[in-house]
């Protein structure tokens, strides 16, 4: 670790040109936070971060600096998280059709049109502006934590890992029709949560 940097023409097979301990200080919290959002259990999140860093040490030669160190590490972490759920998917049934089964029927009238006062409100601040604010991210983090566990797993695989529907179905052993229902309800609930707790009447505008 204290050796001088390796000469580029003769790269050392050791970790002399990487500094895994610095990774812990610089990226540890962010990786952990991300893992915790995904798996919800502190011990598992910590283990996943540890495994990620150990794997990163082994793969450091492949990291060409094309992306930032953070996104490289995060990419490894994402794979670890997917493996974790794949393993779980063999034992646990991830289908959840109980959650939110009324799909906001109180917001629609008898003909299934929005009741005007209960339809989606205009969001302020608008999209990209909101994403610059830390309050928005804290609200999103809280909203994700409020989704039922299985719904959250499926939803985050789809939206954060950008995994195709078919792959999710295969990995977690759920039917495509049920996946659609779960994703639809997750999106609806998350939108609703953000509106209530961040945008909506108070949240965003008072900032």
């Amino acid at each position: 670790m204290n050796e001088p940097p390796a000469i580029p023409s003769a790269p050392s097979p050791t970790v002399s040109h990487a500094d895994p301990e610095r990774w812990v200080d610089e990226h540890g919290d962010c990786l952990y936070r991300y893992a915790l959002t995904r798996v919800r259990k502190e011990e598992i999140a910590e283990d996943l971060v540890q495994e990620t860093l150990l794997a990163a040490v082994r793969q450091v030669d492949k990291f060409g600096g094309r992306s930032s160190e953070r996104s490289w590490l995060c990419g490894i972490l994402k794979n670890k998280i997917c493996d974790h759920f794949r393993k779980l998917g063999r034992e646990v049934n991830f289908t959840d059709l109980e959650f939110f089964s009324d799909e906001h029927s109180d917001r629609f009238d008898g003909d299934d049109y929005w009741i005007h006062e209960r339809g989606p409100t205009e969001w302020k601040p608008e999209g990209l502006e909101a994403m610059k604010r830390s309050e928005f991210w804290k609200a999103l983090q809280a909203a994700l934590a409020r989704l039922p566990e299985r719904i959250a797993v499926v939803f985050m695989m789809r939206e954060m890992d950008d995994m195709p529907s078919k792959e999710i179905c295969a990995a977690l052993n759920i039917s495509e029709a049920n996946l659609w229902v779960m994703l639809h309800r997750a999106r609806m609930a998350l939108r609703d949560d953000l509106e209530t707790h961040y945008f909506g009447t108070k949240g965003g505008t008072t900032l």
Partner: protein
Amino acid sequence: VIEPTNWWKTKLVMFIAKHTPKCHDITRLISQSMDGQLPLRTRLAMRVHYIICVWCTRYRDQLALTRKAMHVCPDEGVEKMEGELEATAKARMKERLKRKAQESPEHS
């Protein structure tokens, strides 16, 4: 009572509402459209529905925003979220990394 100038407009809105999917169905279709391509006919019907329905239009845009946020979350969002590794956990990790480096320097 509808003003005479608005009479045609109202009739048109009612006509479109009658001939496109209901809002509740539109929300389901919006979600489905985010996971795969819908038939052209359905996509067109949705387009026409948006013309008369500000709520479904907002719903669509807000779902798109949520998707975008989820997508950039690992790179941008986590920075601003809450939760930290305890100092002891960090020390534990460093210790294991150090041991790993010592035990198998040639391993790749």
